[in-house]
């Protein structure tokens, strides 16, 4: 069976391998691809650039995981809609919104987001609050997408902070191994 000129255009291998097609396909369907079994992703929501840089560096070295940084609540919400995270480390004292408000608003927004990665519908992502505010003053309510699992004080040496984060990673996300 011979193909018409239009059909030949449709089945054109060059077209399917072209950067334009790949970019369009990724934009339309890429966000719903599963990331399970691949590199684990952590979202660090922190407006203190000194802390976020050093924690990102150390976690990458320790676990080879991908650490995304959001420096304000709105950047965090955008990142949560674009990709699924295995763990969220949340600063309590963010500009404009506090930690709980950030997660509640994100949870509400995600209910109406059609392009949300499918993992968000299946799992509750563990959330660790990371703050110099006392633990009793910052507990996040459980929502459809988020589950508060603990608190880490900022006011302690970095090695203790990293040890505690490592503990949460190992407890809450299977497959993590320090390297």
């Amino acid at each position, binding site marked *: 069976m011979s193909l018409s000129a239009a059909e030949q255009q449709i089945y054109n291998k060059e077209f399917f391998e072209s950067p334009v097609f790949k970019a369009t396909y990724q934009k339309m369907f890429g966000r719903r691809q599963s990331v399970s079994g691949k590199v684990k992703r952590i979202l660090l929501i922190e407006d203190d650039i000194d802390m976020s840089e*050093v924690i990102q560096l150390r976690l990458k070295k320790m676990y080879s995981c991908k650490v995304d940084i959001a420096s304000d609540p709105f950047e965090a919400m955008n990142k949560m809609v674009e990709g699924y995270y295995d763990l969220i480390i949340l600063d309590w004292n963010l500009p404009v919104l506090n930690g709980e408000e950030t997660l509640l608003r994100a949870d509400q927004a995600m209910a109406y987001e059609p392009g949300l990665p499918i993992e968000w519908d299946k799992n509750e992502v563990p959330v660790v609050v990371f703050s110099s505010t006392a633990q009793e003053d910052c507990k996040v309510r459980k929502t459809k997408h988020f589950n508060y699992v603990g608190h880490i004080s900022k006011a302690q040496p970095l090695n203790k902070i990293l040890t505690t984060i490592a503990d949460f990673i190992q407890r809450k996300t299977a497959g993590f191994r320090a390297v």
Partner: protein
Amino acid sequence: MSFSNQIPHEMKVVYIQRRLSDFAECNRAIETGDFSFLEKVGHQVKGNAQSFGFDALSPIGIALETAAKERNIENIKKAVHDFGTAVANIQKTEL
């Protein structure tokens, strides 16, 4: 799991440079009455100084945050002065 040499020297240098910048901006904030900025700097220093091994800055951060919350200008000025002195001292002796 070992966390030795956890903070590279260059990150400590950048940290202190940012605190020097904070010090200059705190002085401007005193002039303009920007208490929220002063509170934010105090809060961040309270939270991150110890992590970088600069324990002497933590109580100054607490003092600045408290004074800014109370809008106590005398205590703010003292805390900012102490902050600048401590950061300059670290830069001279530890880096």
